[in-house]
């Protein structure tokens, strides 16, 4: 009964003060909506690989290497015999799994369908059990044991054969070799660190001459997963690993001087692998980004609650009378606390409903921005429990202070004709305003800095010019027709230059040692690049010493090497005169390649990573395709049409596949852009919410000051001087917020920037801009409200009280 009575009076009082109801509802619902979006994002990020049933007991082996010229590095690729030896050595290893992307398969063919597949993988038979793969057609036992056997996804089956039934037991040609389809698996989720739609038996390559390295400990290319009986055994295995490495690996004399290993839980792979190189993964997240967003969402929610608290406190003068009167009539304090909390409960409930409505509207937008497919699923009990929790928490956070504050009034105060808000509560209100603006200023500053960094990356001289270029992928043996391809492409005047190369960035992705032909046989770990004489010119990479490759010189095919500056620096050379390697890239020590030139360091990977030493060889067999530079005047569509037609003429057996440089670049920085976009939204939102709160608060405070304003006006004070007095008060608060926000956000942004090896400095300019923006917005808000009051007839104001 009492509840309805309270509800009645609180709802009516809210409806009467529509502006504040609106501010509260708008603020809370937007805050809640933003919070829910982030919760969905965080849940999504944290639930990668959840489909793997035994995930808790699965680990990935990570190596810690120490490479001359590179230093310590964690790598997720391992040696061929590792899985077998770990299983033999440690009884707690129940199963092992090796996987390796099948990059060298350039064509997949059935009848007249000829395509290049990008999600093919070699795998051990244990993959089905370990990664919970369900077989939808075919005998699920003894899969991928035979050489040249395949398991393909339903989608792939339909793509090539029209149906899973037709695909089963059929043959697919991979690089023109027949492979038998043993079974059809369900389409795999992309919500995983690993993704594949064609699995090839590991036995197809094991023991073949090309993959002879798989029998040795000197080369790392496979990812090794272990399934343990129980996850606690990982610690024991890790303890025994140094001895294992000594016994099994160092004893083989395969060139290891330093090697450590550890087991990374499967659940950590997606989010906690930023420090690991050579991860053959489909998707990688970042635990830090996730936690940053969690903090931001909590802050936004807090801003919304603070608005609520502030407005409640400001309204308190009006409500004090009700509280006092109810107490006179016998209400006790708890029942009044209950009244105010129930009020905030009702408002929060409405706000949550509004937030859910808003989400329905904006989710498509958010999904396209994040590349996700979030939906509001009310059938999920967790979702509903979450909303309920949110309801309780927000109502308590925003309702309890006002409740205890307001219920404190003694009934006697009502007889004295209302109360003025106490000094203490106005301090609280002010610190809450400072808090809100501190968050907004911090976010604005962070956006400006992130923006600077992204612009810096986009504008920075990478040492390589990616504009107007693309890369075409060769199939097996296509390199033999490089000259013909060059000629026929260059017939088109819009095509400026064509060069055989490892990739558009000039390096192959692999890392390995070069040995210097000196007394110490100095070793340097480098990135290999295989390029022809046109590559450096095509991509505007500057040769700073020596000469370029020259096909007219017989020795240049395989016999010479060009280094980048970093390599030369690491070697401590002042020049390259007479310098030689002691073997070629493929380890042929009958030749000692001359170091013929040095190129200026350029960023073959993103600005996040340091430029490692690199060595470039002229080895046409290792070219994975051609890099093409075209004229800026020509349209991309025309260029692509022309190239594709030429390609089909020359390489009827290789599917046409190209990648444009800008695409490759933007993929590299995609996550940064994503972060920036999200940040922009959240900063705007938090600024908006803070202003909303400020507007509400000033409105109420000015209402209370109506009498003062009236008296001042009656005594002849000008509108502008009254407004100035009011504005001054708030500007001081915003300034204070800036002082608090800036050092904190500098710390935060420094951590973001630390991730880049090449980064912008903290800019004073951005600090000033962030504070000025907040000041301006606060100024406009206050002036808007204060001006209205100050302009009104002083008589009205005096009558008011």
């Amino acid at each position, binding site marked *: *009964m009492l509840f309805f009575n309270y509800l009645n*009076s*609180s709802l*009516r009082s809210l409806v*009467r003060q529509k502006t504040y109801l609106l501010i509260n509802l708008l603020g809370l619902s937007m805050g809640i909506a933003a919070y829910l979006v982030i919760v969905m994002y965080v849940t999504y990020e944290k639930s990668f690989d959840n489909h793997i049933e035994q995930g808790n007991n699965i680990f990935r082996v990570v190596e810690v290497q120490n490479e001359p010229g590179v230093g310590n590095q964690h790598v997720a690729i391992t040696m061929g015999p590792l899985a077998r030896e770990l299983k033999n050595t440690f009884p707690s290893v129940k199963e092992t799994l090796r996987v390796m992307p099948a990059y060298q398969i350039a064509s997949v063919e059935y009848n007249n369908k000829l395509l290049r597949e990008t999600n093919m993988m070699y795998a051990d038979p244990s993959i089905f059990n370990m990664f919970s793969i369900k077989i939808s057609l075919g005998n699920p036992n003894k899969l991928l044991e035979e050489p040249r056997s395949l398991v393909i996804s339903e989608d792939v089956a339909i793509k090539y054969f029209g149906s899973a039934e037709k695909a089963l037991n059929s043959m697919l040609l991979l690089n023109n070799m027949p492979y038998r389809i043993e079974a059809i698996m369900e389409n795999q989720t992309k919500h995983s660190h690993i993704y594949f739609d064609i699995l090839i038996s590991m036995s197809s390559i094991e023991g073949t001459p090309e993959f002879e390295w798989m029998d040795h400990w000197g080369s790392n290319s496979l990812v090794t997963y272990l399934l343990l009986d129980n996850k606690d055994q990982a610690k024991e295995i890790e303890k025994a690993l140094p001895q294992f490495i000594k016994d099994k690996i160092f004893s083989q004399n395969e060139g290891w001087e330093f090697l450590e290993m550890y087991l990374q839980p499967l659940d950590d792979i997606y989010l906690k692998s930023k420090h690991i190189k050579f991860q053959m993964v489909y998707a990688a997240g970042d635990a830090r980004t996730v936690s940053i967003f969690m903090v931001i969402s909590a802050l936004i929610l807090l801003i919304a609650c603070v608005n609520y608290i502030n407005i409640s406190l400001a309204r308190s003068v009006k409500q004090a009378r009700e509280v006092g*009167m109810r107490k*006179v009539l*016998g*209400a006790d304090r708890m029942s009044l606390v209950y009244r105010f909390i129930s009020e905030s409960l009702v408002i929060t409930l409405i706000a949550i409903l509004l937030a859910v409505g808003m989400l329905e509207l904006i989710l498509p937008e958010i999904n396209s921005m994040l590349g996700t497919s979030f939906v509001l699923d009310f059938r999920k009990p967790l979702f509903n429990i979450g909303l309920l929790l949110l309801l309780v928490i927000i109502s308590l956070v925003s309702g309890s202070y006002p409740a205890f504050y307001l219920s404190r009034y*003694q009934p006697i105060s009502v007889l004295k004709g209302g109360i003025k808000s106490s000094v203490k509560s106005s301090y609280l209100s002010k610190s809450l305003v400072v808090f809100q603006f501190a968050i907004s200023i911090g976010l604005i500053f962070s956006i400006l800095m992130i923006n600077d960094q992204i612009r810096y990356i986009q504008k920075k001289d990478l040492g390589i010019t990616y504009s107007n270029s693309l890369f075409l992928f060769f199939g097996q043996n296509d390199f033999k027709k490089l000259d013909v391809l060059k000629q026929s492409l260059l017939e088109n005047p819009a095509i400026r230059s064509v060069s055989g190369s490892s990739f558009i960035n000039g390096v192959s992705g692999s890392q390995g040692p070069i040995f210097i032909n000196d007394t110490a046989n100095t070793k340097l770990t480098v990135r290999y690049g295989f390029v022809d004489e046109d590559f450096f010119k095509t991509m505007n990479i500057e040769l700073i010493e020596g000469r370029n490759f020259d096909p007219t010189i017989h020795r240049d095919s395989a016999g010479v090497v060009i280094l980048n500056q970093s390599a030369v620096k690491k070697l401590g050379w002042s020049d390259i005169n007479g310098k030689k390697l002691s073997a070629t890239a493929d380890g042929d020590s009958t030749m000692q390649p001359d170091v013929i030139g040095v190129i200026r360091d350029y960023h073959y990977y993103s600005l996040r990573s340091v430029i490692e030493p690199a060595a470039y060889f002229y080895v046409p067999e290792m070219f994975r395709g051609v890099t093409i530079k075209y004229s800026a005047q020509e349209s991309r569509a025309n260029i692509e049409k022309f190239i594709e037609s030429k390609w089909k003429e020359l390489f009827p057996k290789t599917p046409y596949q190209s990648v444009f440089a800008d695409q490759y670049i933007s993929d590299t920085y995609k996550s940064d852009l994503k972060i920036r976009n999200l940040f922009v939204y959240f900063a705007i939102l938090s600024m908006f919410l803070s202003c909303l709160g400020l507007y509400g608060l000033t409105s109420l405070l000015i209402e209370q000051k109506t009498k003062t304003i009236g008296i001042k006006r009656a005594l002849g004070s000008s509108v502008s001087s009254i407004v100035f007095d009011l504005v001054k008060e708030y500007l001081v608060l915003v300034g204070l917020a800036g002082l608090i926000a800036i050092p904190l956000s500098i710390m935060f942004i420094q951590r973001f920037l630390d991730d880049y090896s090449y980064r912008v400095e903290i800019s004073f300019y951005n600090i000033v801009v962030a504070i000025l923006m907040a000041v301006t917005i606060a100024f406009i808000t206050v002036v808007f409200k204060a001006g209205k009051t100050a302009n009104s007839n002083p008589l009205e104001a005096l009558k008011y009280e």
Partner: protein
Amino acid sequence: MNTTMLKTVNLTKIFRTDEVETTALHNVSFQIQSGEFVAIMGPSGCGKSTLLNIIGLLDNPSGGDYYFMGQEVSKFTEKMRANIRKKNIGFVFQNFNLIDELNVYENIELPLIYLGMSSSERKKRVEATLEQMQIMHRRKHFPLQLSGGQQQRVAVARAVVANPHLILADEPTGNLDSAHGEEVMNLLAQLNQSGTTIIMVTHSQHDAEYSQRIVRLFDGQIVNENIRFGKPEISVLDS
């Protein structure tokens, strides 16, 4: 008729701020019998309202004893005071103090809710009171839709709905014109006739004449107590 409603012995009230100590009441001793209609008068700042607050159990004295219906209550906590208050005392204020967000019916019902009365009993009582105060037709109105006189009528209704033994009125006509003031005074007098004890603070000699006794306060002390006999003829209530 001859039981003692309340009695104060050397009642003192001192207000302290950081620097100033103000004695609002100084050794106030008096006694009020059940069924009396007493007016407290005195200039602004003499301590009238402070006395009324203590009598009404809204505040505790700084010293002295206060017997309310035979019970010494001067050291009671707010919770204990609230408990006595809601059962025994009705309040009428100068500025009405109706809750703007509740309508007439709900405002009058409020004390009964705090008494924990059942809803059917409340309905009976509120309707009887609405009838008695002749404001049945206003029951759905909100305070801001009523004139001052009507609001005070509602406030009086709220004060009497729980059948309190004592009604405290703090300048009940202070915000009303003379016609509406008259009406309210007649209401109070009528209530007194039916047995309710009434204590009223007022500035108005005219209003004070409705009472049987006037207590005059000056600088926190009683300076004069004279017994009078209330107006014999009660004018008929008009709406």
